[in-house]
């Protein structure tokens, strides 16, 4: 039997949990093979060099083998020097990781989204505006995990979205003109164009994307969103 061996695959750790006395199970997001689970044997021993590296938000190169649901990690290297995420940006990082776990199926490659994720972490490290960085990634995730979101056309009325009208989101998660709608046409078009400079647009984007994500997750709660809100409330 030939074993599937992968060498030095660019990856980030999304989450890790202890396994038995000295091992870890890590959820990784790899560039070419998508999300996968890896068993890291013996890395929790005092002399292990890998444990310090097997943490979220560190650019890594992973080598592993196996075809099954749980693959075996054989080597881990630091891909490049990096600035650690700190403060609020770090909490946002946890939220990104949970989104990826919730939206991507295992072993389903998403190289473009991997690039978006790297860019998003870079923006967070450089102190980019957190809300806009998160909204941008949420849009990328929705689009690239196969759902797609079009906010520029009212299908029900067969008309392009008018910046001066109001809309709500219909069952298909697309805009429908309504006098008591909660989204302005102007904001929908700005969100579609990823223009988050205006605070009103940003606020509407937050509520709209929250609604869309919740619909797509069928009510499955996002733990990190709850924790993030608790943290912000107390600071």
């Amino acid at each position, binding site marked *: 039997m030939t074993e599937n061996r992968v060498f030095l695959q660019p990856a980030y750790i999304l989450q890790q949990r202890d396994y038995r006395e000295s091992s870890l199970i890590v959820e990784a997001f790899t560039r070419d093979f998508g999300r996968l689970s890896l068993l890291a044997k013996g890395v929790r021993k005092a002399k292990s060099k890998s444990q310090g590296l097997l943490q979220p938000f560190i650019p890594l190169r992973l080598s592993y083998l196996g075809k099954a649901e749980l693959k075996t990690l054989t080597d881990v290297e*630091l891909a490049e020097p990096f600035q650690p995420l*700190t403060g609020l940006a770090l909490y946002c990082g946890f*939220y990104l990781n949970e989104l990826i776990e919730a939206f991507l199926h295992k072993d389903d490659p998403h190289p473009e989204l991997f690039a978006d994720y790297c860019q998003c972490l870079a923006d967070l490290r450089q102190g980019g505006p957190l809300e806009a960085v998160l909204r941008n990634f949420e849009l990328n995730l929705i689009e690239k995990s196969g759902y797609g979101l079009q906010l520029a056309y009212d299908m029900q009325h067969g008309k392009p979205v008018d910046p001066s009208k109001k809309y709500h989101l219909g069952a298909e998660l697309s805009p429908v003109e309504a006098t008591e709608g909660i989204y302005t046409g102007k904001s929908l078009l700005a969100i579609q164009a990823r223009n988050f400079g205006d605070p009103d647009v940003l606020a509407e984007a937050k509520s709209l994307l929250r609604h869309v994500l919740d619909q797509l997750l069928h009510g499955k709660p996002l733990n990190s969103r709850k924790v993030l809100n608790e943290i912000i409330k*107390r600071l």
Partner: protein
Amino acid sequence: MRDTGLLGRLIQHLRCLPGVGPKTAQRMAFHLLQKDREGARALAETLLQAIDRIGQCSRCRTLTEKPLCDICADPARDKSAVCIVENPSDVWIIEQATVFRGLYFVLHGRLSPLDGIGPGELGLDQLERQLATNGIKELVLATNSTVEGEATAFFIGELAHKHHVQASRIAHGVPMGGELEFIDSGTLLHAFNGRRTI
């Protein structure tokens, strides 16, 4: 061999201990029953008493059988300095290895957003009340050097600033006697980022 009687149950329950697999559990069970029945009875009785009586200190949340643990009750301890740790075992380790003479606060975990563990689960409301009223002047953040440990330290540091309490993070990095050649790149990077002027 699958023994579903008392012996089998004993072996099964011994496996709840960390590092104890089926083989070790079997050896332990036979040892207790064949060679040390006296010790086994003492162990069982002590275990029951410990479970019944050991709870959390009302001030620092460490494990104790009293309302206030020995450290918190000691009048010689400096009540203006509080060291934040993830686990009660960390208190023991710091007590044995350092000259810290302040008090502790035990989180029983760390911020873990993906697992839904936030400030409420770690007793941070209680810590904040202490910061507001207990005359604390300094917090020492001794959470682990993991991403979640850092996230926890940052948040508690912010709480401290809010209450005008000075907070410091313990240094992480190159171990004593450690040669750079043998240190993993993650640790070295951490040590580099945490460098200080001399």
